[in-house]
C-alpha cells in the first residue's frame, strides 16, 4: 500500500494591510467609520501614555510591579474593537489597553497594581474577567464561558488573550482542544511579542508559526502583522463573525514586539540587543496608525495633551484613596465568612484597636527589592 496524504489543507496566511513604510493595501483596507478610527487611535495613545505614566508611578513606589504594553497597542485595540460590549473579554496580564477599551476606569487599573482588591473587580454589567497571573490558565475559562453562554442561549463571543510563551503551557492546548471539539464561539488572540521574559520565541517552539497550532485542533489560525491596526482588526472582525455565526473558534497570532520591560521588575538589556529593539521601534504601531489618520485628515490637535490630562485626573483620584482597610484581608475568601475567619477577623480588629496601623508609606522599607526593581522613595528611606 502506498502512503496517501490525508490532510492536505495545511494553510496559514499572513495578513498585513498597512505596513511600517505606510503602504496600504486598499483592496484589504477595512472600512472603519471616521469616528471609530479616531476612537481607536485615541485608545492606542491612551494605552501608550498610561503605560509610560505607570512605569514612572512604579519607579516612584506609588504602584507595584506590572507588565507594560508598549508596542502592543495595535494588537490589543485592533482585536478588542471587534467585540460587542455584551461579548466576553478574557485577559492575561498584559492587556491594559484592551481593558481600558472595555471600560475599566484608569484609577481602577492603578488600584489593581497598587494591590487593592477593588482593582480586580469588573463592574457588575461588564463581561470581563480580571487579569490572571498563572500563564495560560485563563484560556480554559474562556471555553467555559462560551460553553455556559451556549447553554444559557446567550448570543456572545468570547475573546481570550495570551502570549507566545503561553502557547507552551498545557492549558493552552487543552483549551484549544476543547474549543475545537465543542465548536464554541471563542477567538484566541496570541500576542506574539517575541519574548517570554528572557526566552525568545525560537526557544519556546520549533513551530514555524503559532497560528498553525490551531490546525492541530481542527480550526483555523491566521498570522497577522500585530503592529498593523487594520490587519489585526480585519482578522478579528472575521473571526468574531465566524464565532457569532456558529462557525467555531479561531486563533489569531499577532506578530508584535514588547518594546519595554517584561515587567517593572525586569531588565531586558541582559538578554536582548539594542539593535533588535531599534529595528522593532521602526515598526512601532503608533506612528503607523497616526500617519494613516493624518492622511485621512482625522487627527485631532492636542490629542496627547487631552489624554495626559485624563490620566492626570485619574492619578489624582487614585492618590487620594485611602490605604486598603486591613480587615478586608478576610473578604471574598468564601462567598460567606466562616466561623474561623470571623474569629481571626475579630482578633485582628482588636489588635488594630490597640496598635493602629500606620500608613503604608510610614512603614519600614522592604528588605530587598525584587531583582531588577529599583529602590523607590517609598521603600528606600
Amino acid at each position, binding site marked *: 500500500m502506498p502512503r496517501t496524504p490525508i490532510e492536505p489543507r495545511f494553510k496559514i496566511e499572513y495578513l498585513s494591510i498597512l505596513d511600517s513604510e505606510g503602504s496600504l493595501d486598499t483592496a484589504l483596507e477595512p472600512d472603519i467609520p471616521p469616528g471609530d478610527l479616531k476612537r481607536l487611535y485615541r485608545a492606542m495613545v491612551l494605552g501608550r501614555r498610561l503605560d509610560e505614566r505607570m512605569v514612572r508611578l512604579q519607579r516612584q513606589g506609588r504602584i507595584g510591579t506590572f507588565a507594560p504594553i508598549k508596542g502592543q497597542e495595535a494588537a490589543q485595540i485592533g482585536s478588542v474593537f471587534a467585540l460587542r460590549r455584551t461579548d466576553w473579554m478574557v485577559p492575561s496580564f498584559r492587556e491594559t489597553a484592551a481593558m481600558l477599551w472595555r471600560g475599566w476606569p484608569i484609577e481602577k487599573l492603578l488600584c489593581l497594581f497598587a494591590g487593592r*482588591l477593588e482593582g480586580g473587580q469588573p463592574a457588575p454589567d461588564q463581561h470581563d474577567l480580571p487579569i490572571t497571573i498563572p500563564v495560560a490558565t485563563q484560556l480554559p475559562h474562556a471555553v467555559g464561558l462560551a460553553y455556559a453562554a451556549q447553554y444559557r442561549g446567550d448570543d456572545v463571543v468570547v475573546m481570550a488573550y495570551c502570549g507566545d510563551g503561553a502557547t507552551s503551557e*498545557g492549558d493552552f492546548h487543552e483549551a484549544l482542544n476543547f474549543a475545537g471539539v465543542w465548536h464554541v464561539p471563542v477567538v484566541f488572540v496570541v500576542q506574539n511579542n517575541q519574548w517570554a521574559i528572557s526566552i525568545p520565541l525560537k526557544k519556546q517552539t520549533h513551530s514555524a508559526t503559532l497560528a498553525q497550532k490551531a490546525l492541530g485542533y481542527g480550526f483555523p489560525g491566521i498570522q497577522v502583522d500585530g503592529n498593523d491596526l487594520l490587519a489585526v482588526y480585519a482578522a478579528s472582525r472575521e473571526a468574531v463573525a465566524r464565532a457569532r455565526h456558529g462557525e467555531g473558534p479561531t486563533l489569531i497570532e499577532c506578530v508584535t514586539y514588547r518594546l519595554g520591560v517584561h515587567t517593572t521588575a525586569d531588565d531586558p538589556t541582559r538578554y536582548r540587543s539594542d539593535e533588535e529593539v531599534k529595528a522593532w521601534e521602526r515598526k512601532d504601531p503608533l506612528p503607523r496608525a497616526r500617519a494613516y489618520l493624518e492622511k485621512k485628515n482625522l487627527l485631532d490637535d492636542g490629542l496627547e495633551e487631552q489624554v495626559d490630562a485624563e490620566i492626570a485626573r485619574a492619578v489624582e483620584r487614585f492618590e487620594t484613596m485611602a490605604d486598603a482597610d486591613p480587615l478586608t484581608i478576610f473578604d471574598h475568601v468564601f462567598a460567606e465568612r466562616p466561623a474561623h475567619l470571623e474569629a481571626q477577623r475579630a482578633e485582628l480588629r482588636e489588635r488594630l484597636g490597640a496598635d493602629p496601623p500606620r500608613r503604608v508609606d510610614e512603614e519600614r522599607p522592604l528588605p530587598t527589592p525584587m531583582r531588577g526593581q529599583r529602590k523607590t522613595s517609598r521603600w528606600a528611606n
Partner: protein
Amino acid sequence: MAVMTYREALNLALREEMRRDPRVFVMGEEVGLYEGAYRVTQGLLKEFGEKRVVDTPICESGFTGVGVGAAMLGLRPVLEMMTFNFAILALDQIVNTAAKMLYMSGGQYNIPLVVRGPGGPAAQLAAQHSQSMETYFYHVPGLKVVRPSTPADAKGLLKSAIRDENPVIFIESETLYAVKGEVPDDPDFTIPLGQAIVRREGTDVTVVAYMGMMYRAMEVAEELAREGMSVEIVDPRTLRPMDTQTIVSSVRKTHRAVVIEAGAGFAGMGSEILSFITEQAFDDLDAPVERVTGENAPMPYARNLELLKTPSKAKIAAAIRKVCNA
C-alpha cells in the same frame, strides 16, 4: 427512608439537584455513555441529555478550567475526577483559580463548583491511585473539603456541596461505593457543610476518624467494649470548614483522644486535628493525644503490603489502649 448503596445515594443526589436546578450540569471523563468509571452517573445522560451530562477529552486541568469559566457565567458544574489522584493535574485550576477567583475579582465572581470522585486507599489500586488526596486541598483558603463516610452523608453532603456558592472538593472512596445504609427520601434533605457527627457514643476516649478508618474504628470500638472500654467516635465529615467544636466537646467529655488517618501521616489531617485538640482542650486531657496514620511511603500494590501500610485494627486498638492506660 430507603436502604441504598453509597453509589446510589450519590447518584440520587445528582439526579435530584439536576431536576431542581437547571444550572447544574455534570462534566468529566466517561460520565456520559459509560456512566462514570464507578457508575455514579448512571442514567443521567438518558434523563438529562448531552448538554447537561458532558463527556470531556482527557484533560483534568482543561475541564476544571472550563468548569471555572462556566461557573463564572452562573452555571453550577459538578466535575468528576475518575480518581482524585488525577486531580493533581488540575491543581492549578483548583488552587489558583477556583479558590481565588472570588478574591481576585474583588467579590465579583464566586465559583459554585463541585469537584468529586474517589480517593484514598482502596483495594490494590497501587501507588498512583491510592493517595489520601484531601491533604492537597484543605490547606487552601477558599476551598471546602468534604469526605462523606455513609450513604446518607454522601447524599446530604453532595446536595449541600452543589448548592454551595464556593468551590467544594468532595472526595468519595472506591471502598465505600457498595456500602449500604438508610438514606432519607426527602428531596429537601441536606446535611450542612461543616458539621461533624458523633457516630458512636462513649465515655473513655474520643476517636476521630472518617471514611474507611471510621468503619475500622467502629469495629475496634465494639471489640474493646467487650473489655469494658467505652469508645466515642466522631466523624468530621467536612474537613474544611472543620467542626472543631463537636470534636473538642467530645474530648472535654472523655479526656482522651486518638486521631486516625489513612494517609501517609506527616502534616496530614491528623496533625491538624491533634493540634486544635491540644490548643483548645489541653487542660482537659488526661493523656497525650495519639495519632495513628499510614506509613510514610507510597502505597504498595501487593495486597499483603497494602494491608500493612494502612492503619490496621490492631494498630488502632493499641493506640486506644495506650491513651486509656496512660
